[in-house]
């Protein structure tokens, strides 16, 4: 008898709750078996749509959920007791879960029957994804509050989904991915144990509810071994560290989204092949098979995917599960000497790194000290260097670049999804109506209680559910906790990162040119690098900052989550010769013109502004018309060439 297939999901959500609801219904009708909710960046970072930082981000990379009313619209007509809902939500996971539970209770559902996942993993937010809201210790407390609550009251819920996915996206090697995910899980479980309010007999069940969210890259044999290694290492941790005896509770349960990092802008049609091969890594071996799979879309390096693009990826899953004979077979690799040796090597190396991080005080301490971040930045720099030198082959990028143009991208502007810019204003208006129509006294009272509980060690779940029911907004919930917990900026990892020893002539030439420009200017060319908006994927900006330093720029690295006002103020105070901004969330047309306008007002008209990101050609043209000096997209992977251009830009303006 064939095995049951994995849960098939599509990471989806955009514009409004109502539009996303429609999308979910059609995805389910097409054979998708679970929901995966993508939230927009304001919702992920705990800001209302009318906050200055939300500008341009509302409804872009996911659905905006500002309050219970939005949650109602999102799940309109979808029976919660029957759904398996995965929510990619972290800093504000408790809040979105509270809204979900409030909705279920309002509908008269039995919350103990709810099934699903909140990602609720903060460590990788500091390391890679950047959508954190609070400092590490309060964030860990929120995670364990959710764990303590759900293991008691919503027992089928996965309260945290430890993510190695984003570590690979940030450049992690398989060994680093294994090690840092495991220390994250250990950190969460140790913290849950230290709370003291989870009865000892329930703790094995808590361990059993920990699930993982993993990545798989194109080297699919090694990736499969990585998953076999994960299975064994997790079993070891559960047994040795937490004394879990029941094998079922020690199972390595994971969902997966395959690699987006390796998707190319050049010859993008090839990406569907990469996606399918990567899916093999997490399905071929029965003993290490994913429980839920979501695949990226072929055109993600170009812009946001359309429903058809996502459907194509879903079809790939369906063909593998239902047409092939994969699910009729036992594990194909047990007894293979090659696979076992590779797996064992990964286990040994990863465990050494696990022990190293635990010696440094564990995951949170290694985040705060910048140790892990720096290791990832270095790995990513090494990866980019291998691609740039051709050592790592990427078809269509550094080999076999010539080919017949793809009809799929004949009209590039039609080959991606566009979010109507009116969505943001509509969400803001709806939010104002919501605030006007609710019982303000009830809201104030609920927030007051939330604040009081936040100042104690008590579980914040009940107070959050009460807030949800009273009509509190996402920004109010997070804002109240910010008042108690404070805000935080994670280490950038770029300061101490080392780069390669081997350097080509190209770098030397850029350096010499830069020195000459420095002589003309009287001081060393200085560049500001930063990310406007709420998008926290800082890997690209970090690599540019590092490379710029290594060709001789003085680089002011501003990090993530900057307002246009902050960027321009920094550029002025720092006296930079060049500004480089990175935007991956699709909000470039809102944010970049605002920066330009403010530069004009500050008298910085002469300072060239360059922009990098996922930027469609037509948008790039518009940005250039408005005064952006250069637009870079993923196809500009040759950093030496790019740096040469930046030096020339400074030279031109220096006269």
């Amino acid at each position, binding site marked *: 008898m064939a095995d049951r297939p994995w849960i098939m999901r599509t990471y989806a959500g955009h514009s409004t709750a109502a539009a996303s609801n429609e999308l979910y219904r059609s995805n389910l009708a097409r054979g998708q078996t679970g929901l995966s909710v993508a939230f927009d960046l304001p919702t992920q970072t705990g800001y209302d749509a009318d906050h200055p930082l939300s500008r341009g981000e509302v409804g872009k990379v996911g659905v905006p959920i500002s309050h219970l009313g939005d949650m109602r619209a999102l799940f309109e007509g979808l029976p919660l007791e029957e759904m398996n809902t995965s929510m990619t939500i972290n800093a504000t996971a408790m809040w979105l879960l509270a809204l979900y539970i409030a909705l279920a209770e309002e509908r008269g559902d039995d919350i103990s029957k709810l099934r699903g996942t909140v990602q609720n993993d903060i460590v990788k937010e500091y390391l890679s994804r950047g959508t954190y809201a609070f400092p590490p210790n309060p964030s860990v407390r929120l995670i364990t509050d959710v764990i303590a609550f759900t293991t008691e009251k919503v027992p089928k819920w996965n309260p945290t989904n430890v993510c190695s996915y984003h570590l690979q996206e940030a450049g992690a090697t398989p060994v680093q991915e294994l090690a840092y995910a495991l220390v994250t899980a250990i950190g969460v479980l140790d913290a849950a144990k230290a709370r003291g309010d989870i009865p000892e007999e329930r703790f094995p069940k808590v361990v059993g509810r920990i699930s993982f969210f993993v990545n798989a890259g194109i080297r699919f044999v090694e990736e499969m071994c990585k998953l076999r290694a994960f299975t064994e290492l997790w079993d070891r941790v559960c047994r040795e560290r937490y004394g879990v005896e029941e094998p079922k509770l020690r199972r390595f349960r994971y969902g997966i989204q395959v690699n987006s990092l390796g998707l190319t802008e050049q010859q993008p049609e090839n990406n569907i092949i990469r996606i399918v091969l990567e899916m093999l890594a997490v399905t071929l071996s029965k003993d290490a098979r994913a429980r839920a799979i979501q695949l990226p879309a072929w055109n993600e390096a170009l812009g946001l995917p359309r429903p058809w693009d996502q459907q194509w990826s879903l079809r790939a899953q369906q063909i593998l599960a239902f047409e092939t004979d994969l699910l009729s077979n036992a594990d194909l690799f047990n007894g293979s000497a090659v696979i076992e040796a590779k797996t064992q090597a990964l286990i040994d190396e990863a465990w050494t790194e696990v022990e190293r991080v635990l010696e440094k005080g564990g995951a949170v301490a290694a985040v705060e000290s910048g140790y892990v971040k720096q290791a990832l930045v270095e790995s990513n720099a090494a990866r980019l260097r291998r691609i740039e030198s051709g050592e790592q082959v990427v078809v269509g990028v550094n080999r076999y670049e010539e080919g017949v143009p793809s009809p799929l991208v004949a009209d590039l502007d039609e080959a991606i999804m566009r979010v109507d810019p009116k969505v943001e204003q509509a969400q803001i208006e709806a939010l104002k109506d919501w605030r006007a129509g609710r019982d303000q006294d009830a809201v104030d009272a609920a927030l007051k209680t939330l604040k009081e509980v936040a100042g104690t060690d008590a579980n914040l779940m009940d107070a959050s559910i009460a807030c949800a029911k009273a009509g509190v907004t996402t920004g109010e919930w997070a804002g109240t906790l910010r008042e108690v917990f404070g805000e935080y900026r994670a280490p950038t990892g*770029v*300061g101490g990162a080392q780069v390669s020893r081997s350097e080509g002539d190209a770098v030397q030439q850029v350096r010499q040119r830069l020195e000459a420009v420095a002589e003309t200017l009287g001081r*060393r060319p200085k560049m500001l690098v930063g990310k406007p908006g709420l998008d926290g994927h800082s890997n690209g900006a970090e690599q540019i900052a590092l490379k710029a*330093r290594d060709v001789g720029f003085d680089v002011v*690295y501003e990090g993530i989550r900057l307002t246009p006002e902050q960027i321009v103020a920094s550029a002025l*105070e720092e*006296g930079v010769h060049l500004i480089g901004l990175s935007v991956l969330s699709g909000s470039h047309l809102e944010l970049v013109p605002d920066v330009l306008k403010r530069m004009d007002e500050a008298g910085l008209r002469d300072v060239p502004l360059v922009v990098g990101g996922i930027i469609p050609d037509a948008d790039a043209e518009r940005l250039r018309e408005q005064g952006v000096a250069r637009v870079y997209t993923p196809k500009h992977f040759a950093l030496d060439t790019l740096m040469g251009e930046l030096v020339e830009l400074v030279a031109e303006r220096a006269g």
Partner: protein
Amino acid sequence: MKRSGASTDLLNAEGIAALASGVLAGRKASVATALNLVEDRREGSRRAVGALLRALRDGFAGSCHRVGLTGPPGVGKSTLAAALARTLRERGRSVGVVAVDPSSVRSGGSLLGDRARMGFDPGDEKVFVRSLATAGEAGGLSWAAPAAAQVLAAAYEVVLLETTGVGQTETDIRHVADTVVLVVQPGSGDVLQFLKAGIMEIPDLLVVNKADTGALAERATSDLRSALASTQAAGLGEAMPILATSATEGRGLDALADALDAHRAADENLATRRRRGAVAWTLQLFRRLHGRHGVETLGGDTALEAAIDGELDAEAPPTICAHLSERYLAAVGRRESPPATATKETPR
């Protein structure tokens, strides 16, 4: 106006006067332009800097408090500087910050990452942050830092100077700051190292940062107190206040701000200290250009110091240095500019 360097209108007297009045009025654009000029290594710009600093001194009451923050890497100096600046802003003081980061030995470039962690309100006209690279300079300060501090001191009530670290050569900070704060971590043993290296002569205040827990903070400060007592007994250092802070949690900052005020108020020798600092800075500028040969040609350290001191009432250090250069070049019989290698930064 080109922002990329000193434009010609900055090199004449009117341009300098206009720039100086902008700085004195605390206009950010003027302060930024003045700092760009300060960092400019071209000879014409160096002359303009001398004139600018003089103009600033003439229009300036000298009430600014210049505070140096020094200490080994990783003790949280930037976070402390940011938290202290916020505390000072809450007290209504305007604040200028100079944050110094190391330059890469290989490329000469640098990553100036401190700013990202400071998180000031960009609309606040009364706080200004400038990052500088060491550019191969020993001592944890940038060559441009003293002049940058002078510019900021003319525009803001408090100037915070954060160095890259602390080493055996680091005495520069004392020439620039009215109050030097040495920042250490609890239980790091750093202090004993500093004692041995004689660095404990630098600070006016000791801060144990990252004292996130009460017990740890107390133990760390008491350890320090006893360590200091033993060196004083050996005649190696002076009594100084020891404070515990947690910049991330915002603890101990009011006490630090009070202690800084108290040090400043009690310092009867401030004018002498500043004068000595200015002499040392001028001598350093000259030595950078002409080395030991330069110093010996003009009669040695003591004679030069006296010469500099004699001119300080009339001119700013960069101008005095230029005068000394002329004397030196005349003495060695060369009329041309100093050799290019001496003005170029040389990454170590």
